[in-house]
């Protein structure tokens, strides 16, 4: 088999997402092991710096262009990828398991009759086949899977694979103008949550729980997040209490995150919360109960009062950053 890998480049507002660069790098590592090749596909209107994906390992990019495709359309995007792949005998597809990737990858799998492995956190090669590791039961267990189908789709959990620094190789970009895309499902507008970093994409997250005592004290969580350039998150207890929006909830029924630093303020560390954040690279917990389960996963902790410790953290970090 030729092992031709196609990576989907996700763009928002004409900018390439970091998770797509991670997918390109992972695909290019896999292509070496499988003696295959990597190309990339992008869909949208104008996209900045497409040629730069060459630096992560994609030799060529096909850009499907139409003003109506600037926003995501599941129907149109899936059709375009499926058609391109059948004309170009693609064997393996890589997506980022972002909100767009999770929506699109399964559609492409059905249209191309491929097997599907979602949310992969590690990829290896055995006997010229890909072995993917993925978390199940909210990360309480891991499975190694392989796909028996000739064609395969893999979606990679964002923030887990390292894209590395780019080389100065440029990709060869060709643009195809799309006539009339299939817009049977169409995004007509995007409502942005104001000026905030989303927990799902943040490199640092500061989350507050019931130990913050009331919605008025989340200013402290936000202030610490601000000095760290972090997103603010929340436990379910405070989301259910209406103190914070659901989009901030981390955990089994919220978002699964793997930032490089996760700071838990006044969060006990219930099993459902741990499920969503235990794969963070470093975890800091501030909780006045030294026996709180959060300390079992924390790398560093202070068993003290958030109202005393957090203002001191803000001051100390400001000091070293200035």
């Amino acid at each position: 088999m030729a092992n031709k890998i196609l990576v989907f480049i996700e763009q928002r507002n004409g900018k390439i997402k970091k998770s797509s660069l991670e997918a390109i790098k992972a695909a290019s590592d896999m292509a070496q092991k499988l003696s295959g090749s990597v190309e990339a596909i992008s869909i949208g209107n104008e996209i900045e710096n497409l040629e730069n994906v060459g630096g992560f390992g994609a030799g060529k990019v096909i850009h499907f262009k139409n003003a109506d495709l600037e926003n995501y359309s599941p129907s149109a995007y899936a059709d375009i990828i499926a058609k391109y792949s059948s004309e170009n005998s693609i064997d393996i597809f890589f997506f980022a398991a972002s909100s767009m990737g999770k929506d699109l990858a399964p559609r492409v799998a059905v249209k191309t009759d491929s097997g599907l492995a979602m949310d992969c956190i590690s990829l290896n090669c055995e006997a010229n086949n890909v072995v993917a590791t993925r978390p199940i039961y909210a990360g309480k267990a891991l499975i190694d899977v392989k796909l028996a189908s000739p064609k395969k789709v893999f979606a990679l959990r964002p923030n887990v694979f390292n894209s590395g620094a780019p080389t100065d190789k440029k990709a060869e970009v060709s643009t195809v103008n799309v006539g009339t895309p299939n817009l049977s499902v169409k995004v007509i507008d995007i409502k942005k949550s104001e000026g905030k970093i989303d927990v799902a994409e943040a490199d640092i997250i500061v989350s507050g729980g019931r130990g913050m005592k009331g919605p008025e004290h989340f200013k402290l969580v936000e202030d610490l997040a601000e000095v760290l350039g972090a997103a603010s998150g929340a436990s379910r207890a405070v989301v259910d209490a209406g103190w914070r929006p659901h989009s901030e909830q981390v955990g089994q029924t919220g978002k699964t995150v793997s930032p490089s630093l996760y700071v838990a303020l006044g969060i006990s560390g219930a099993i459902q919360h741990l499920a969503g954040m235990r794969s963070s690279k470093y975890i800091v917990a501030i909780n006045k109960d030294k026996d709180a389960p959060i300390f079992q996963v924390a790398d560093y902790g202070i068993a003290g009062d958030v109202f005393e410790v957090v203002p001191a953290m803000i001051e100390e970090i400001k000091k070293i950053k200035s």
Partner: protein
Amino acid sequence: MKIAVCVSHVPDTAAKINIGSDGKTLDPNGVTFIVNPYDEFAVEEALKTKEKIGGETVAISLGTDANKETLRKVLAMGIDNAVLLKDNNYRDSISVAKALAEEIKAQNAELVFFGKQSVDFDNSVVGQLTAEFLGYNCISVVVSFSLEGNKITCEREIEGGKEIVETTLPALITAQKGLNEPRYASLKGIMAAKKKEIIEKQPTAANNSVEIISMKKPAPKQAGKILGTDATAVPELVRLLRQEAKVI
């Protein structure tokens, strides 16, 4: 209009997960099972839609006899009919979706609700896959849903905001937390659900492409250091984050 809702029967989110002796499956001993939390939002939306436009609701679940417990619970919430697609064997998401699509077609349901994710294998794909097999329009991870005539408008949660998405029937929607507040079953509902028949059917045999090689628990995290009990520990914490962890 017929409205279908697909529900899965999953380990309680508080359950401790142990691996079976084959090293490939969950050891179900001591694990309680519940209605998949996201499916409760799907059931609620199906019920609300029926209350608004009339019609009939049917819940479909694929799995073993144990899934009847979940089907009874959603009947108690007010779903009219329930179908168990009985299969004791392993199925990957694509094989699950194929079987569900066949049943939805047999039911002639034009509007279908799913949870956005089943909290066992956490793939977040069965809804989208089923829609593809049916040729239905599909919007996933929905936090608001409205149906006017043939036209559907949803808000779909994405990183840093929401997409406003439009489509038309026939359609399949996957529900995210925030879509609604699932109702509790009333005593009357619970009594009525006990009397209802759960129709059992045999789905087409699976043709799995995902082969599970092994299942294991993640390496336990080493408990870290508690640096102190008050603000005096803060300089050391910040130093470690900067010099040891190198994350700030």
